C-alpha cells in the first residue's frame, strides 16, 4: 500500500497569454509526468482563455536564490539610481520606453 501511494511530483506552470508576450508563472500543480502536467495545466490554468502556450517544469528542477541572502543580494541596488536609464533625453519619436 505505502509504496504505491506516492504523491505525484510538483510542477510549475508558465502560461503565455498572447503571441509576442512572455510566458508568465501562474502557479503549480501535481502530475505524474510531463504530458500529464501539460494536460492538467491546460485544464487548471487556461480554462478561461488565459493562454496560447504552456510551459511546465518540475519544481525540483528550479534553482532559486536563497531568501536568507536577500539582503546581500538585492539591497545594494537600492541607492544606485544611476543604473536606471532615466538620465537620457529620448527623441520624441521614440514611444513606450
Amino acid at each position, binding site marked *: 500500500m505505502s509504496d*504505491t501511494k506516492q504523491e505525484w511530483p510538483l510542477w510549475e506552470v508558465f502560461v503565455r497569454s498572447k503571441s509576442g508576450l512572455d510566458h508568465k508563472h501562474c502557479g503549480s500543480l501535481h502530475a505524474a509526468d510531463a504530458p*500529464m502536467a501539460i494536460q*492538467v495545466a*491546460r*485544464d487548471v490554468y487556461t*480554462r478561461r482563455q488565459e493562454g496560447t502556450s504552456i510551459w511546465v517544469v518540475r519544481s525540483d528542477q528550479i534553482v532559486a536564490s536563497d531568501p536568507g541572502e536577500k539582503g546581500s543580494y538585492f539591497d545594494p541596488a537600492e541607492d544606485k539610481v544611476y543604473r536606471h536609464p532615466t538620465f537620457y533625453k529620448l527623441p520624441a519619436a521614440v514611444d513606450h520606453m
Partner: protein
Amino acid sequence: MHASIEIGTSAALQYLLRIGDTALIQAQRLAEWCGHGPALEEDIALSNMALDLIGQARAVLALAGALEGAGHDEDQLAFLREERDYRNVTLVELPRGDFAATALRNAMMATFFRLLWERLRESRDRELAAIAGKAVKEARYHQRHAADWVVRLGDGTAQSRARMERALIDLWPYAAELFAADAVDLEAAASGLGPAWSELEAAWREEMEVILGEAGLAAPAATPFLSTGKQGAHSEHLGYVLAEMQHLQRAYPGGVW
C-alpha cells in the same frame, strides 16, 4: 410539479435528440466527479469536460427544438421530458463506477463523438455543421485525455490494471448500441443531416484497439447483447439521473438565478 412535454417523432428530430441527450447524460455522470476526483487537477479536468458536453448538448437540443417547431427550447427539452423520451445511448447513463470505468467510458464516448463531429461538419444543416466545427476540438481533447488515462491505468499497477479489465467487461458490451443502425440513422444519412452511426464503427474500433493495445489490454469479444437507449428503452439508472437533474425545474417551473 411541472407537467412533462411530449415531443415529435420525426427521424431528424430523433437523430438530434440522440446526439444532444447522449452528450447531456454523459455530462451529468462526469459532473458527479466534481469534488470527488482522484486528484484536484483531475477533478477540474473532469468538470471541464462535463461543461464542454453540456455546451454541446445545449446547442444540439436548441437546434432540435427549433427543428421540431413546437416552441420547446433546450431547457424544456432537458428538464421536462420523461425518461422514455430521452434518446441517449445506454452506455452514458450507467453509474459512473470507479475512476477506471469513468476513464474507459470517456475514451469510448470521446472517440465516438470525435468521429461523429468530424462527419457532422459536413451536415447539410449549416447550424449543426457549425456546432460540430466547435465541438470537434473539444472532443479531440477529451479523447486524448481519456485515452491517456486508459493507458496509464491499464499499463499501471496490478490494482489499476485489474480495475480497467473489470471496466472493460462491464462497459464494452454497451458499445454495440452506438453502431446499431435503424430507420432514424438511415434517414439522417439519406437526407444529408449526418452519418448513420454504423458508418463510424470501423474507425472507432480501430482507434479503440490502438488505445487498448497501448494499455496492454484487449477488447472483449462481441456479445449478442444490444442496449436500446436510443429508442427510449433505458436501463434502470436513467430515471435517477433525471430525477436529480430535473427536480428543480419541475418544482419551480422556469426558475432562474
